[in-house]
């Protein structure tokens, strides 16, 4: 087996498909390193905030419209996303939905720390107490006196109109949930005492950047305090907080959020298969394939503190009763738990996350598998390589020309190799995808297609192998999967693209990752602990914070 040199790849700043004529260099982004960001909140973050404040009993749908994926990540796109009138309507509607429940008779006793003197009239003191408390979490800092006065007065005015204290309070809470201070994560700077003339992220922004990277949620109370007091700038406090965040259960949420973004898992919302062809692949199963993928990742990277690369060869998975039908194995629910750990047998053809339905089914057609899509997904999602668009004027008709007698995907795709226009790109994708052909469009194991035996052999960058296990092993040891996850997590945690100036930092992080035996929590720790993580490259006067 031949390994490519990661160092050379990184030094060149390129993602290279070693042999393919149609290989494409990843474009160098134009982002300015170290700039502050203004990120638009996404559905998961919104849900995390509401749940952390009010608990999981509050029912609402935070399925906000998808943001543009920039440099492979929605999180990077969130730094340029705008609020359309339709999106604002959604925020406003969702905010009212949440606020109405918080103040209803069922929840108010637990969620509102005080009771009004008269439920039919305004009560400034109680309103102020509640709004200051929730506002601190929503705005990731204490409300300014002006802000608190405004929202308290607004609650009073609304309460008068309704003749109901709680309805008034609900209106102010709904207003805060649609305000820009909540829906935009806005970073601010302050003069850097260690570097006269320069600026740095201020305490609250620093706390927010850490929390978003590690938990995908705004800072909790302890981190807010560290940010507001400036203690977060002290190395001992900073280290203690990073240790706490990585050790907390919320870190799992953060890991899930990152991989949801990296692996484009939002498309599962619309995944459906032909019920006649794949009766076991129900809507419930479709949703569970996504959850299964995240559970495998979370378990391996966080609970087991495993080597990131072993995700491609792990046999430790999770099954639900419905999902087990795709695996054709019996699974017994364990008490109230709907998911049970399951170890794939050593002789099972299925190994690692590439051979799970979460990867296989989403990268297939509704009624059949797709070696091309699977190969493309592996290249683009796990190796950060870009597969070019197909040329527009290609005739695929010989795919179904009866004279070809093609019964398997391999035979059909051979048609491409005869066409030089197609061959370049398909050489990049198909030899990978064909080795996953023993899993149909729903991810079920098979050995025949249309009565013909499936040949699962393949090759990756010139190295051949016999089956999906061979692919898993090769991918596991491919340097691109390591550089890719470092690159993606760097962009994710900064919510921006990378520029040439970032390459040196990326290389260092990759070295650190290797030294830490490819432990993802250690990668996260190294990422947010690097002084570069908070560096502000250039800040004009107009960007200086008002909170200096």
């Amino acid at each position, binding site marked *: 087996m031949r390994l490519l040199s990661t160092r050379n790849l990184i030094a060149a700043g390129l993602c290279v498909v070693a042999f393919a004529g149609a290989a494409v260099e990843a474009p160098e982004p134009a982002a300015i390193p170290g*700039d*502050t960001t*203004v990120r638009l909140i996404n559905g998961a973050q919104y849900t995390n905030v509401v749940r952390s404040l009010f608990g999981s009993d509050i029912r609402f749908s935070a399925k906000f*419209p*998808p943001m*543009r*994926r920039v440099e492979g990540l929605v999180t990077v796109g969130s730094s*340029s*996303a*705008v*609020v*359309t*009138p*339709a*999106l*604002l*309507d*959604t925020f*406003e509607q969702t905010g*009212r939905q949440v606020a109405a429940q918080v103040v209803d008779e069922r929840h108010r006793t637990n969620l509102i720390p005080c009771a009004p003197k008269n439920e039919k009239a305004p009560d400034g003191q109680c309103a102020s107490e509640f709004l200051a408390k929730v506002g601190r979490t929503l705005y990731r800092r204490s409300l300014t006196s*002006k802000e608190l006065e*405004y929202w308290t007065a*607004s609650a009073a005015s*609304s309460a008068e*109109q*309704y003749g109901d204290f709680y309805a008034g309070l609900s*209106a102010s809470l709904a*207003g805060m949930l649609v*305000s*820009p201070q909540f829906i*935009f994560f*806005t970073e*601010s700077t302050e003069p850097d005492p260690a570097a006269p003339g320069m600026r740095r992220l201020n305490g609250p922004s620093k706390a927010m950047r850490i929390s978003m990277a590690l938990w995908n949620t705004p800072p909790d109370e302890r981190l807010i305090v560290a940010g507001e007091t400036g203690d977060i700038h002290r190395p001992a406090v900073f280290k203690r907080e990073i240790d706490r965040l990585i050790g907390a259960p919320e870190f799992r949420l953060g890991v899930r959020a990152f991989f949801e973004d990296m692996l484009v898992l939002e498309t599962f*919302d*619309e*995944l*459906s298969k*032909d019920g006649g*062809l794949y009766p076991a692949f129900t809507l419930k199963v*479709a949703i569970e394939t996504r959850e299964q993928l995240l559970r495998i990742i979370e378990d391996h990277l966080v609970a087991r503190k495993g080597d990131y690369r072993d995700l491609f060869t792990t046999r430790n998975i999770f099954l639900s009763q419905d999902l087990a039908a795709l695996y054709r194995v019996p699974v017994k629910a364990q008490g109230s738990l709907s998911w049970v750990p399951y170890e794939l047998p050593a002789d099972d053809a299925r190994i690692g996350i590439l051979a799970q339905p979460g990867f296989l089914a989403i990268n297939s*057609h*509704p*009624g*059949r598998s797709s070696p091309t899509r699977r190969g493309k997904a592996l290249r683009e999602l796990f190796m950060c390589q870009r597969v070019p*668009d*197909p040329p*527009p*004027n*290609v*005739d*695929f*008709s010989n795919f*179904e*020309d009866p004279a070809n007698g093609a019964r398997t995907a391999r035979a059909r795709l051979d048609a491409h190799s005869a066409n030089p226009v197609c061959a370049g790109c398909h050489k990049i994708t198909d030899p990978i995808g064909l080795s996953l052909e023993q899993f149909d*469009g729903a991810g079920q194991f098979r050995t025949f297609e249309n009565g013909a035996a499936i040949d699962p052999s393949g090759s990756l960058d010139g190295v051949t192998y016999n089956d999906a296990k061979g692919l898993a092993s090769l991918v596991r040891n491919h340097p691109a999967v390591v550089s890719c996850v470092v690159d993606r997590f760097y962009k994710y945690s900064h919510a921006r693209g990378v520029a040439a100036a970032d390459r040196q930092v990326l290389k260092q992080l990759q070295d650190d990752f290797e030294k830490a035996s490819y432990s993802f929590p250690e990668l996260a720790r190294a990422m947010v602990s690097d002084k570069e993580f908070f560096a502000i490259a250039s800040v*004009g006067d*107009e*960007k200086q*914070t008002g*909170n200096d």
Partner: protein
Amino acid sequence: MGRIYYTRPDFSRRRMLRGMLGGAAVTVGIPFLDCFLNESGTALANGQALPTRFGTYFWALGMDEKIFIPKKVGADYDLPEQIASWKDIKQHVNLLTNYNVLTDGKPNLCHFTGWVALKSGTVPAARGMMPDPSIDVLVGDVIGGASRFKALDAAASGAVRDSYSFRSSDAINTPMVSPIGMYQSIFGDEFQDPNAPMFKPSTSIMVRKSVLSGIGEQSSELQKSIGASDHARLDQYYTAIRELEQRLELQTQKPAAAPSCKVPTDVDPATTVGIDTETVQWRHNAMSDLMAMAVACNQTRVFNMVYANSSIGCVRKGSDRTHHLITHEETLDQKLGYQPTNHWFLLRAMEAWAYYVKAFASIPEGAGTLLDNTVIFANSCQSFAKIHSVQGIPMMTAGKAGGVLKTGIHVDGKGEAGTQVGLTLMAAMGMKVSEWGKGSMKTSRHVSEIVV
């Protein structure tokens, strides 16, 4: 593009909302309040014209030229096999063929270049790049503030990503994707029946407006702490806040009577997932009915409907291939001269289009129908999808836009820029646009054949 002005003196009350939306100066009319039709039903009681609405329609994967394009150009065109389902709507529909997307050497990005160019006048340089707003957004900036929703978007494909309406790459409008969700959004608790005998301003709406107003007043604090590039984003946020406030303001006043508004009562609560043709058509037809009624009930003046995703299409139950795959893999039947299965899918798409047009044409309004006071612009992503051709992508318009457009005409574009259609429709909506489009797609020519 040229500057856009709205000059149509249609409304009894109007106010100017000035902003820099899409770089264009904008004037928005507010709806006619306390207005009723005149005796003949051709105008409002005060003599002013009925409002004109603007809609779009998108279907995937083009057409089969041989059985789609009528032989006859002009009025009373013939209906080849693929558009035979237009029999009952032909008189409402203009068919525009042989208009081109001129790429100026930019790559033809499969299932992307064509619709972006026809919708926005700009050929995209790369996938995902949409530097200029789609036509419905431009029209919406002018007339969208006059109703409860600035625009309504629906996708029969059932996927929230299936939108062909955008202000920019970062501001894509999101469609409603199920009939029940659409019903709840439009006709749910917050719907005010324009024909209700009594009207009492809702306290809730007044409170919401007041809260939003306060948010707008605090804008300067946040603006201080961000950079120039993010200023524009916050500006868009505050513009959306102001627009929502204005739409809420409208709802504090008695809505204009809408005699044709019949609030739907029987909506299928299913939220079935899937893109098989039966499911998509079920969604499509239910959402078409809701959309037409939303317009008749004055809930919006701008609306967009998507039939299927540009690069997927639908799937036939029991088949292992999507329509998209079939366009590429199915052999061209030498005897027929087209791909039979691809034709089957396109037949279903054209039936859907016919249903959509009928939904608007069957609602009476004034002396005519809702469709008479509407114009719907339809287009696909390709012409011959097998080779992703963007030359001759078929387009249609339906409706007379309040009497300024002729209908029932087949126009041969003679290979000229397809932006002529969009420019003509913006003019029909009363927008003074001297030219539209960029590069070779820039045009100042109207499709004179369909203009009264």
